[in-house]
């Protein structure tokens, strides 16, 4: 990763490998994570904190599901679509998952082209990622609409435990909000890439700080995280 990770100094340092390297870094001055910029460190720590948010949401949902005395609706039936004369279980969720994971692929490619200073490809791939993300949110809206027309509400549903609807809307809603924010920031960063802000060192509108192509990677970290969280939601909510 050494060549794709920007350092502020531009010079690689000779450091011991393995555990000794970790100890050397942590006992050194200035930085505990050598060659990790402030922005990237901040994103990683934020994601750690956000992991605890999603962890608490999912644990609460599992507690509710395990402790309720009313039967839990069967996800295979609830989340099936009637296509071509038969009910296909989880088909929409499968497509959504496919779309979101694909968007991680395009994001990774955008990061690569960003470090190659290929403005056009980077921006296009980021916008493609945003489009896939927006598609995901759109399909989620469709799923919500379908369930709501079938009578699912946060406070109850026709098939069983009321906590099904509550947890479903809360967790997918919270995740969908994350995706939506991601899409917005993808578009903002893509615009900066397209306009060449990172080549000309144009200061940010709010922060008055100059950015660089590492922003694409930091954006990618967030995006992959949101993607990974979805895998857990998919496993614990839909497959359980």
């Amino acid at each position: 990763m050494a060549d794709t990770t920007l350092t502020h100094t531009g010079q690689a340092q000779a450091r011991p490998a393995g555990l000794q390297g970790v100890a050397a870094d942590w006992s050194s001055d200035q930085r505990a994570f050598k060659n990790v910029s402030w922005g990237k460190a901040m994103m990683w720590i934020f994601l750690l904190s956000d992991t605890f948010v999603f962890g608490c949401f999912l644990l609460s949902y599992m507690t509710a599901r395990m402790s309720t005395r009313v039967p839990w609706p069967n996800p295979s039936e609830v989340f099936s679509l009637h296509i071509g004369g038969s009910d296909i279980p989880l088909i929409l969720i499968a497509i959504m998952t496919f779309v979101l994971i694909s968007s991680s692929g395009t994001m990774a490619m955008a990061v690569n082209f960003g470090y190659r200073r290929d403005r056009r490809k980077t921006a296009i791939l980021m916008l493609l990622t945003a489009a896939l993300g927006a598609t995901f949110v759109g399909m989620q809206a469709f799923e919500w609409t379908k369930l709501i027309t079938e009578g699912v509400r946060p406070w109850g549903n026709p098939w069983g435990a009321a906590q099904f609807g509550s947890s479903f809307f809360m967790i997918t809603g919270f995740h969908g909000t994350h995706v939506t924010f991601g899409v917005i920031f993808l578009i903002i960063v893509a615009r900066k890439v397209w306009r060449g802000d990172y080549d000309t060192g144009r200061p940010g509108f709010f922060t008055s700080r100059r950015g660089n192509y590492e922003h694409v990677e930091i954006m990618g970290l967030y995006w992959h995280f949101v993607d990974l969280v979805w895998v857990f939601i998919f496993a614990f909510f839909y497959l359980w």
Partner: protein
Amino acid sequence: MVDVTPADAVPPAEVAEMELYHPHSWWTKYVFSQDAKVIAIQYSATATAIGLVALVLSWLMRLQLGFPGTFDFISPEAYYQFITMHGMIMVIYLLTALFLGGFGNYLIPLMVGARDMVFPYVNMLSYWIYLLAVLVLASSFFAPGGPTGAGWTLYPPQAIMTGTPGGQDWGIILMLVSLILFIIGFTMGGLNYVVTVLQARTRGMTLMRLPLTVWGIFTATVMALLAFPALFVACVMMLFDRSLGTSFFMPAIVEMGEQLQHGGGSPILFQHLFWFFGHPEVYIVALPAFGIVSDLISTHARKNIFGYRMMVWAIVGIGALSFVVWAHHMYVSGMHPYFGFFFATTTLIIAVPTAIKVYNWVLTLWRGDIHLTVPMLFALAFIVTFVNGGLTGLFLGNVVVDVPLSDTMFVVAHFHMVMGVAPILVIFGAIYHWYPKVTGRMLNEAMGQFHFWVTFLGAYLIFFPMHYIGLMGVPRRYHELTNTTVMTESAHDLNAFISIMAFLVGFAQVVFLFNLIWSIRHGREAGGNPWRATTLEWQTPETPPAHGNFGKELPIVYRWAYDYSVPGAKEDFIPQNVPGSFGSSREPA
């Protein structure tokens, strides 16, 4: 500890100079400022302002407890609202905000040798969202039905039911929204503090050369970033229970003869989420206090801190352990007995690193050149108060002792000693210590002495009798107990005594506030380093430090933060940015 870098062996700078946003107008300099020092003062002032509201609420509570039946305007509903708002404001909006937002913002960049926090704009947003949270919270006093009266723990189901003040009105909603905002705002600041400590130290500043203040604030911030999510989730879910009619925390329940629509939720789940946040929160407040008090003691006893490495590992150890003790707040909630056993064990294990810290403070004082300045008095008072509060913690940490004491005034006395009075004493000490750096002038000594003695002795006169009436079985959170058997004549007299002491201590704080304002103009000129301290914030070219903290060149750190009374040194202290080893082969500084 020999930890001195030779002058020619300082590592090269790894990070380019930080680009600062230089304000163009009065608004961007003093109001929408991105300077961590201005943000720190904004945080502190806001926290103090809302803290004064909580202080007045405590007086109102003491009026009712000390003289029941005398004050008609304190209805049972109002009394519950006072308790709730007093507790929540003091714990979250005052202590957490003041230690992390106030001291963290001011001291971290100065102490690690940085120009500012790594992302000043985000840091500024953190304050404004905190202010919004405070305003939302304060607005609940004026909302229909008043603020929530659910107790600061906000336990469902009662928190959102009709009988509780604010339960079916605006009170609980505003409280939950305010907490959610606070957490969002805090996260923005907290990420800054952590990254600044980890990635923006100056040349020569290793983690093991950080002043313990930074270690305390840093560890507390990491804990807050991991503990607040649980409260965030709990708030979101309770907000849905209240506003959308979901049943995350609401079991099937009959209210005033009517079956509610709720059913199937788990009130215990809320308690787990709340205390998974709530217990680390105790140490989020305590660890910065531990760190600051270490520095105060070392500086004012002119002696290096005893067992620096142990102090650091004790802070980190306490931080880690505090995540596995939360259910000791729930011994009477209904848990598997083995859970109680587990959580009692982990709770008592925390006593080990804590005791290490207390011993190290005492050993730092041992044969030190103790200057009984006002900050030192507060630091010494903290040690005894913390030991006292900690000892009653051993009672409450054991299941069998906790069960009869739970929900008595003993618990109130315990946590006020250990996480109310003790950290507040450190905050006072720290303000007397760093005020000269912030303003360039010393706080008035006579007023300081008065403030200290009234606060310190008064706090004991308030809370020691409270342990006693708790042991007699007087429960907490009761509006009035005059005609019951637990409320004996003597307990009642003590209650009146406690109330009078509470008013006295409260008024001493007015003297303190006056001192803060008076000394800005009339205090003695302090100079750059009035305490002759070693850490970097005292070595700035200007006092108060300018935007960017250190003038043209960032300081280079050659030694740890505690070189006091070094044999052979010119003065009895060597600042961290002074090169050369002292003793037999002494280099010119």
